[in-house]
């Protein structure tokens, strides 16, 4: 299987070339086009109960689609948001993705839902996070550009900009500054992450866009 992320960074999509016998799992509604000889099968996103949990708390869809081919073919996988996509490869390790970030993975990757804690909730990052583990490639997307950072000590990320992180990263919610500057700087609450480990971030936040739009609606 060959996969290439095209039209980076604004309107990224994955162009996948499947060899005979290959398969790829993608989020429901992620397929934009595909060869006619690729077969698509839909299944619960990791079992009935966990699919419901993932839908309710993880921002993922109830179903995932598995694309397989006996003769080979290609397909294009995309995401709803205008923004970049990236890929990491698991070698038995685990990664956490924020709700909605997951797009596709190889069938050897396990999808699960992990408790993120109240700090994550208060920090605007949700009560749960998607846990990807096993071996294989995972593709994920973001709103705006994606940038990563290897951090060792504490690092501050504004609400809504976190996309994915290593399990070795700890999350704490905190104020961006003092009480006055936290409330009047527009930064409010932030997520303080502590390494060692890698974090993936997005250059735009949907919450920021929604607030900007709402402010101009009236």
């Amino acid at each position: 299987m060959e996969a290439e992320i095209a039209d980076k960074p604004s309107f990224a999509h994955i162009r996948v070339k499947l060899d005979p016998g290959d398969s790829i799992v993608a989020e429901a509604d992620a397929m934009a086009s595909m060869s006619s000889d690729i077969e698509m099968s839909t299944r619960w996103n990791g079992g009935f109960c966990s699919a419901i949990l993932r839908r309710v708390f993880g921002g993922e869809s109830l179903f995932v689609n598995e694309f397989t081919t006996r003769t080979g073919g290609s397909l294009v996988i995309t995401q709803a948001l205008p923004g970049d996509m990236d890929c990491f490869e698991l070698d038995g390790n685990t990664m956490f993705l924020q709700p909605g970030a997951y797009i596709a993975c190889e069938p050897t990757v396990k999808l699960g839902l992990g408790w993120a804690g109240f700090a994550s909730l208060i920090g605007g990052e949700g009560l749960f996070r998607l846990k990807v583990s096993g071996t294989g490639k995972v593709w994920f997307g973001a709103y705006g550009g994606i940038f990563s950072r290897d951090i060792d000590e504490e690092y501050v990320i504004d609400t809504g900009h976190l996309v994915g992180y290593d399990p070795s990263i700890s999350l704490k919610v905190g104020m961006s500054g003092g009480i006055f500057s936290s409330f009047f700087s527009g930064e409010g609450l932030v997520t303080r992450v502590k390494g060692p480990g890698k974090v993936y971030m997005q250059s735009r936040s949907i919450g920021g866009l929604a607030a900007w739009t709402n402010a101009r609606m009236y």
Partner: protein
Amino acid sequence: MFDQSVEDADFQGGVFCKELPNGRASANITLDFTSIRARTTGGDEFVLRYGETNLEMGGSSGRMVFCRNADKTVTIFCEDKKFPKALENASSGELRAEIERVIGNRKQESRRGWGMFWIGATVCVLLLIGGYFGIKQGAKAAVHSLPFSVDETIGELSQSSMQDGFKEVDDPKVVAAIEAIVERLEPYSAIPDVKYQVRVLDSPIMNAYALPGGYITVFTGLIAESESAEEVAGVIAHEMAHVTKRHGLERVTGQLGIVVGIQVLLGDVSGLLALGVELGQYATQNSYSRLQETEADLEGARMLYEANIDPLSVVTLFEDLKAEDPLGLPAWLSTHPDTQGRIDRLKDYAKTLPVKEYDTYDDIDWADIKSRLEGDKDEDADKNEVSKQEDKKGEEEDLDEVAKEDAEDS
């Protein structure tokens, strides 16, 4: 080959090191007598001697143990719950103090985190409760600053849309008598210039009620059961006090949703009016709070006293009725709970008032009013009898006609 590993179990974890591709790799971790060994999936091996290992605890779960060399160029990490104990055993206690320190820090941090969570949750709950009751109480206070025209609108709309099914008594003498009772008390009402509107409804219910704005309804049952105009004046004064104390509006605010509460605080009374009219339509079924009843009793007694009418006149009505039928309480009392307590409070209040000679409604012939109501009933009954007889006669005539037609046809 001699296996130096002192712990049976291998641990799954990883290594952070800049020399690795991507700076990190998953690894299999073993513990021997002198060091921690991590073999990555790529086949690289990293060794940290216990003596030069610094420990940290953290990660997403808070349970991940990081073993680092002094210059932090190599970090071996593991999240397995058994790893700290295995590390302590394998190092023959060399790392015990370090492990106790990081676990102690972790527990302290966890306690602090939970402490902050509970403080935050408590503050949020208190703010919510405080906000809810603050708005409710604020709205209740704001009601008294609203113009009396709001009461009048609620009263007028409620009365006009009420479907009580009772016939209004149009005998001018009966209506005039009740109006005279109201007029005598009117100058002493707490809010001046209230335009009291009185109507008498034909019903055996021994009741009277007032809608906001001064819309007073008296049922003929109350008049029939009373011995004097003063007794009815006692009930009417109580109802007038509900009007002037604006209990109807207060009751509406008690039922307000939070949104309407905020609206009232902001000066928008449209929601209040709608709810007021709706509640007003069920005025006879709704009861005021005990506090409001007591307040209306005392205010009514004050008005009676000022108008030179015995403030305990209503008490005699209650007592007469209770003596006649100790269990069957009249409707007016059954919707006004704690009757004996209220009678006692009224008597106590009357004792505090300076003694004076009370007047009576000399201009009202109460016996005549009562007989007129009975007369009305007899008249109605006569009318019904006459109409029944006429119907019967009509039917007989129709039958005769049909018989005649049949005879002609044959």
